[in-house]
């Protein structure tokens, strides 16, 4: 799997806002503007799982009561694993609008009236990345992890998003590779290499579930050379092809298999601290 630049797709009518968002994290993102919802949709379809999309929820929304474009709801339904951030003024009277956006699955909100500086916007964008996936992994009932185990899993998600290797994971946690291996053992997680492999497959599985993606586009989006490379990666941990995995509910199947492997490592009598 190759490391790829993380796209930041922006759909906002205000040039000043676009500039602010672009300037917020030039080192972390490769920003691209979309001119309308249709263009944004086609770009999201080929974007890697690490991509972040920033939209004005009222873009071309007309005179709707809550001033949220129907195209945004459609985008969220078609690509539920995509990380979509809304950028709008959060004035006191915006309560219903903010709440509806959250309920629809918006990952984060950039409050244009408050988040005016680069560090503030950067933090909003970084906190939104792969949020849904991270939550799913860290809160699954079958996953009885200690606080330490959760920290490793969170950092692993981030490492995989950046196309990193186990040594990068160790570095992000401030450990040596051997300390990371020991922590994984004590937290009853697979070894770092296996953990990274699993998360890559789970990320690909999440994209496979999006109705807007083809198998090939998932392979390319995840940094593989194509659908054959994706097939080989999935086969390393699961007895399915990408199509079979999609038919069974890709994310659910892959994450269940991952949880089963983690559960098989559990030692109930161990002092897990």
């Amino acid at each position, binding site marked *: 799997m190759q490391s790829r630049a993380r796209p930041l797709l922006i759909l906002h009518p205000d040039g000043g806002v676009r500039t602010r968002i672009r300037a917020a994290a030039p080192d972390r993102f490769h920003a691209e503007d979309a001119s309308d919802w249709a263009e944004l949709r086609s770009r999201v379809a080929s974007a890697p799982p690490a991509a972040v999309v920033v939209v004005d929820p009222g873009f071309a929304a007309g005179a709707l009561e809550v001033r949220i474009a129907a195209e945004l709801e459609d985008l969220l339904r078609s690509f539920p694993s995509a990380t979509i951030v809304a950028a709008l003024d*959060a*004035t*006191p*009277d*915006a*309560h219903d609008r*903010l*709440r509806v*956006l*959250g*309920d629809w*699955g*918006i*990952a*984060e*909100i950039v*409050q244009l*009236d*408050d*988040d*005016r*500086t*680069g*560090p*503030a916007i950067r*933090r*909003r964008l*970084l*906190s939104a990345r792969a*949020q*849904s996936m991270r*939550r*799913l992994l*860290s*809160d*699954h009932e079958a996953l009885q992890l*200690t*606080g*330490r185990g*959760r*920290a490793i899993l*969170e950092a692993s998600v981030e490492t995989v998003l950046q196309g990193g290797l186990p040594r990068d994971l160790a570095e992000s946690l*401030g450990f040596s590779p051997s300390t990371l291996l020991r922590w994984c053992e004590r937290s009853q997680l697979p070894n770092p290499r296996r953990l990274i492999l699993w998360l890559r497959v789970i990320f690909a599985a999440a994209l496979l579930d999006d109705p807007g993606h083809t198998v090939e586009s998932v392979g390319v989006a995840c940094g593989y050379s194509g659908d054959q490379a994706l097939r080989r990666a999935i086969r390393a941990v699961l007895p399915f092809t990408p199509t079979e995995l999609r038919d069974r509910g890709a994310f659910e199947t892959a994450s269940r298999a991952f949880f089963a492997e983690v559960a098989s490592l559990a030692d*109930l*009598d161990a*002092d897990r*601290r």
Partner: protein
Amino acid sequence: VPDHSARPRTRKNRRQWRIPPPPLRDGDAPGPEGLLVLHDLSGPLGTVAWKSLRSCLLWSLATDEDRPSLFDSGALRRRRAELREVLGTGGHPLAGPLEAMARVLGPADRVDPEELAAAASEVADWASAAGLPRTALEFRQAAALFLPDDPELALSVLRTARDHGSHSRAEAWFHRTVGLARRVRAWDTYVEAYVDHATMMGERGALPAARRSWMKAYRRANRQGFAPARARALQELFVLETYAGRRREADRFAREAALAMAPSNPALPLLGHDVAMAWLARGRFSAALRLLESLERRVSRGLRAAVIGARAWAAGGLGEDAGFEDARAELERLPPGPELTDAWAGVARGALLLGRRSDARNALLRSGELSRAGSRDPESHGRFGGAPSLEALEAELAAGAAGTAARGGKGDESAARAATDRLVDLLDRGPLPDDRPSPS
């Protein structure tokens, strides 16, 4: 991202404990940070509370280098205007704390994390009192992030998350609390964290995990001389070992718990009841009866019916018809209520042991009626009670009799005797409950 796993700073703290950063969201809390506040609080008040929370989280999670340039120069003025517009000048209870939290938007050198933590805790207290647990949890977390080395604030997040049923978050904050408390040697907080965790795991049925935490709480309380915490841990370990069928260990924990208990400890009647019920289940009827007779003088109205029912069971086990009749008649005189459900099940057990099947059936009928008539008050019965069918009771008693000699070994008779003697002595010496008249 700031390093919340900061290393120890004093010479005393030489061990290199790393504390994982706390998870701030749950699977059931999708969407932007603090979204649950918008669910709890509607209208402009919800929006300004949400914005205040998010500004604080932004500041807490920013690096030291980023903090001075996090907000623009007009941010504080705009927030104050919004607060005035929404909360007015009529002394809204959130006006003070939200105004204090707004200072995070001002000059970085004037931000006082202790003041901000106090303000966030105040909002959390208000939300708890207003029945808004999700808002309380969010602000409690914000307070704990302002002072990330403070184990007491971490403990308060653990408790709020646990009370909200957010177990995964509670467990993560438990680990953080233990790490922070160990780092600064705040052993009272350390013990409380283990007690809270053990209670939570016990309530969820994760008994091995509960036992581990009770054991940790006991050992540290023992080392630091925290008598009430030590007594409580021993009592809970006795209950867990009884559930697990490890009789020898249970008997020893019963003795240790009784020795650790002071006559004035409010948990004494509950320990006496737990021990008496365990003795009954194991056929130690004589010891149980001694305990129950002493206990009856000490228990409040809620537990009294259960004690009388257990007395009927013990009398039945000893073959004492008169004692059984006496207890049953006493139960008849109590006003009916759901707290009598387990008491009548106890009478049924006593009747079966006396071979009075028809009396047992009648007692069970009453138990069932009372159970259906109202919800059961959790404080009105002990942890070994129940209202099963007649056949189930017979099977239980037969299994209990067979198991006395077989399952789990014979137990430690001398420890059990010592526990009984000590508890009877404590109960006879202790104060009467508030709702019972003094004999004099």
